[in-house]
C-alpha cells in the first residue's frame, strides 16, 4: 500500500474526530448547564487528542516537513475527508446529543475493529481511543433516553434531530477507493460489515427512549470524497482563522 493511500485512509478517520471535536468545542461556555458544558468540552478534548495522534502519524508518513498543525489548519475544504454528519451545526442541545450518539455508536464499532489493524500505530491509537469513546457513547445514550423519555418538548426536539440527522448515517458505511485499498492490505476496517450491528444498537436505544426510527429512503453523502455541506466552510473559517491570518503564529 502506498503511503499516499494510507494517509488518505487515516484522514477518513481522523478528520471526523477533528471536526466533531471542533463542533463540541463551540459549546465551551455555551452549554445548557454547567455539567453538560463540561461534558461536551471534555469529549472535544478526547477527540482532539485522538486527532493529534493520527495527524502526528500522518506528518511522519508524509516524508515532508509537515507538522500536525499544518494538517489541521492549512488544508482546503475539499481535502477534509470527514463524513457530513459530524459537521452539522449545534442547532440545539437535542441536535448535539443526537449527532454525538449517531457518531459514537459507529465510532466505537470502528475502533473495536481498527485495534486489529496490522499497522501498529493505528492499532495503538484505536486501543487508546476505545476507552474514551466507550464513555462518550455511555453519555450520549444516556441523554438520548433522558430527552426522548422526558417532557413533551424534549421528546419533540430530540425526535426532530433524529429525523433530520438520520439521512447522514448511511455515509458512515460507504467505502472510498482508499478505504478498499486499506482493507485489502490489512490496515483498514471494512465498514460495510458494521452496518447491521450499528442499526441494532441504535434502534435498541431509540426504542428505549420512546423515539421513532425514521423511515428514510434517501441518504446524503459526499463528505468522504471531500464534497461537504454548506456548514463546513463556516466551520473551517473559524477553525483556521488564526493560522490563515497570522501564518506560522505560535501560542
Amino acid at each position, binding site marked *: 500500500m502506498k503511503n499516499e493511500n494510507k494517509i488518505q485512509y487515516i484522514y477518513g478517520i481522523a478528520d471526523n474526530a477533528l471536526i466533531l471535536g471542533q463542533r463540541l468545542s463551540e459549546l465551551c461556555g455555551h452549554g445548557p448547564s454547567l455539567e453538560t458544558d*463540561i461534558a461536551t468540552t471534555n469529549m472535544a*478534548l478526547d477527540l482532539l*487528542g485522538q486527532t493529534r495522534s493520527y495527524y502526528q502519524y500522518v506528518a511522519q508518513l508524509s516524508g515532508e516537513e509537515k507538522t500536525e498543525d499544518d494538517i489541521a489548519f492549512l488544508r482546503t475544504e475539499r481535502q477534509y475527508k470527514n463524513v457530513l454528519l459530524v459537521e452539522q451545526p449545534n442547532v440545539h442541545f437535542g441536535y448535539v446529543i443526537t449527532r454525538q450518539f449517531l457518531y459514537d455508536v459507529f465510532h466505537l464499532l470502528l475502533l473495536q475493529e481498527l485495534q486489529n489493524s496490522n499497522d*501498529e500505530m493505528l492499532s495503538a491509537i484505536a486501543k487508546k481511543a476505545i476507552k*474514551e469513546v466507550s464513555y462518550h457513547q455511555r453519555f450520549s445514550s444516556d441523554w438520548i433516553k433522558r430527552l426522548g423519555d422526558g417532557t413533551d418538548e424534549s421528546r419533540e426536539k430530540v425526535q426532530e434531530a433524529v429525523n433530520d440527522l438520520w439521512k447522514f448515517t448511511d455515509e458512515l458505511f460507504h467505502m472510498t477507493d482508499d478505504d478498499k485499498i486499506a482493507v485489502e492490505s490489512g490496515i483498514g476496517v471494512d465498514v460495510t460489515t458494521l452496518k447491521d450491528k450499528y442499526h441494532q444498537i441504535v434502534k435498541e436505544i431509540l426504542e428505549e427512549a420512546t423515539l421513532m426510527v425514521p423511515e428514510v429512503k434517501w441518504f446524503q453523502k459526499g463528505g468522504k470524497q471531500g464534497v461537504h455541506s454548506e456548514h463546513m466552510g463556516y466551520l473551517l473559517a473559524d477553525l483556521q482563522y488564526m493560522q490563515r491570518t497570522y501564518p506560522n503564529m505560535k501560542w
Partner: protein
Amino acid sequence: MTIKLEQHIDPQLIPVLEKVHDPEIPVLSIMDMGVVRSAQYHDDVVEVKITPTYSGCPAMDVIGDDIVNAFKAINVKAKVSLVLSPAWTTDWITPKGRQALEKYGVAAPLNEEADKAALLGNKRIVKCTNCGSSNTKLVSQFGSTACKALFQCEDCLEPFDYFKCLK
C-alpha cells in the same frame, strides 16, 4: 484483564522523576501515576518515555516540559517522547498515589464493575473523601478534567471528584 506496567527505569533517575508532578493533581508525582515507561541514559542524555493518561490530556505537554526542566536543574539534558501502547490504565496508579488522591479530596478509582455501577448511578458505592459516607450521588459523568466525574455526598453535602476507572 489487567495489563502489567513494564517499566525500565534507571534507579538513579527515580528521585528526579519523583519531583515532577501532575499539574492538575499536584499531590501526584508522575511515578505515582504510573505514566513513566522508561528512563535511561543514552550517552549523556536521559531519554524518558511517558504514556498519556487521556489522548487529549493537556497536562501531558506540561509534564514533558517539567521533566526536561527537572533534569536541567541538575545539569542533565533530557528528551521526552510519548508511547501509546499499551494504553495507560488507572491500575498503574501506585497504592501511595491512591492514598495521596484520597487525601487531596479526589476519590480513587474503583474496580471496573463497581465503577460502571457507580457511574450509571445504580449503586451508591463511591466513598465521600470528606466524611467517608457511601451515601453519595453522581452529579456529572465528566468533572473538572476528562479523567474525573463529579459526585456529591448526601450526608455532609460535600461535592468531590471521583477518578474514573480506565481499563
